[in-house]
């Protein structure tokens, strides 16, 4: 298997706060990698560092064999990494369609391609189709998550990074979202999935990483990780 993304000894700071301490992880072709950890562990920071929103102070990040550690966020998106941020961050005052248009923004693809991608997204998320002209702010939490994911797919990503897509959603919606993540992955898009909901995430993922106060403390195949005693005790107990 060839690798899509590799982080090696990545350090990141917020002022004096040392948020990532030598984080190393990789995402292989076609797989879903889950990044687990409790609140404040540094999961979001890891994604932000990959997408360039936070600058890595040390270490290296390679994507499809290319060094991207010091690139600007928009350059990284152009290369194909799309980050669906924590809390969805859809544009509430804009319509669903306008939100999706942003996804196709950086890729100046031909209109035919944009149209096809839009159809694909609408097919994947029929609810978005029904609400295309509605303001995104009026959508439910689950629909907003779908919109955020649909928006990401519009830019034809080569790696999709999802930051806690299940946050604040009812179990039944979470199930639906995760099913769609699996579907997206089945189409060949590798996914880096950040979750506090470790149980569900490990069911979905091929590989799992556990982050604690900025350091990777465990990593293994997801099925093995979900049997790991420490994991079960710390993250899967309820």
């Amino acid at each position, binding site marked *: 298997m060839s690798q899509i993304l590799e982080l090696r000894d990545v350090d990141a700071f917020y002022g004096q706060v040392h948020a990532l301490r030598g984080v190393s992880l990789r995402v292989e072709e076609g797989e879903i990698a889950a990044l687990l950890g409790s609140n404040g562990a540094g999961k979001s920071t890891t994604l932000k560092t990959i*997408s360039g*929103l936070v600058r890595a102070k040390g270490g290296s990040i390679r994507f499809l064999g290319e060094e991207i550690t010091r690139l*600007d*966020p*928009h350059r*990284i*998106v*152009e290369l194909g990494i*799309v*980050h669906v*941020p924590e809390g969805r*961050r*859809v*544009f*509430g*005052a*804009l*319509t669903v369609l*306008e939100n999706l*248009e*942003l*996804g196709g*923004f*950086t890729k100046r693809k031909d209109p035919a391609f944009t149209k096809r991608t839009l159809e694909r997204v609408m097919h994947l998320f029929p609810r978005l189709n029904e609400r*295309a*002209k*509605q*303001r995104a702010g009026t959508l439910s939490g689950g629909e907003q998550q779908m919109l955020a994911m649909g*928006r*990401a797919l519009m*830019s034809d990503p080569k790696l999709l990074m999802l930051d806690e897509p299940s946050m604040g959603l009812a179990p039944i919606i979470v199930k639906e979202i995760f099913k769609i993540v699996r579907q997206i992955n089945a189409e060949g898009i590798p996914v880096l999935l950040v979750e506090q909901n470790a149980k569900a995430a490990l069911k979905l993922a091929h590989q799992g990483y556990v982050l604690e106060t900025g350091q990777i403390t465990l990593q293994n195949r997801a099925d093995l990780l979900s049997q790991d005693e420490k994991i079960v005790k710390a993250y899967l107990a309820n």
Partner: protein
Amino acid sequence: MAQLQTTTPLAKKSPLIPVLLALFAVILFLMPYYANNYMLDVATMALFYVVLALGLNIVVGYAGLLDLGYSAFFAVGAYTSAILMTQFQMNFWLTFLIGGALAALAGIIIGAPTLRLRSDYLAIVTLGFGEIIRITALNLEITGSSSGIFGIPRPSIGGYAFTHLYDFYWAMLLLAILTLFAVNRLGNSRLGRAWKYIREDEDAAEAMGIDRVRVKLIAYALGAMFGGFAGSLFAVKMSAIAPESFNFMQSVMILLAIVFGGLGRLPGVVLGAVLVIILPELMRSFAEWRFLLFGIALVVMMIFRPQGLWPSGRGKTE
């Protein structure tokens, strides 16, 4: 259930509107034939404010950046024309273009270091920049220090010299119309959409691949450029300029114009600019009370109609 998109230009909504707009344009063009000099002068000032408000609207309305020092940019345009024409005998139209370009450059210079600031700091920095420009003009010899520059020659086009008030009125009207078209086009362009995303949620826009720095700098540069154009024409119309023409109150008035009419919506911006000039004129009999009354009107409006005077499309913040 489905909501109408309000991003479509106004002109597309009804076949009547282009006709009305054309009629309105004709009435404006014919103004020198039926209006007296006082009315014409006020109208020229109003059009001048329309250009300034449209320019500032790019920065504040489209890109969502606060700017309390916008008069600095029209000062740059005005002084550029004044200096180049009085001391280097340059052709006005050339200085007009140079004034716009230098103002754009000033926009980038003020924009670049402030891009990472939160809006409250941005307010202070832009305010400071406006004052720096004014105080510089006040102290430099080339800008004529406190007495400013006078005897700025009148421009001409192909042998036709601008001598009457209506020449400047027409020139300002033309500039206002061109600016309106340009700013409207910008708002509906790819760049306009990028500004809208940045304004809505900067971080999310950046995460989706919008080049935040570039997009914001272009907003500052273009906004400043229109200010520069307006300032340049202002200088030859007045034939004299002084630092006090570009004080903080001017910046506030332009900002008021766009807040008054409705941020980001061009008909509102134009209306706001016109009202900001005309209302104090109408209240002239109240002499120095008029700004107070004007202020009260604004406060009342902020309470009852904070989205601006122009009707918005069904609660949309566009």
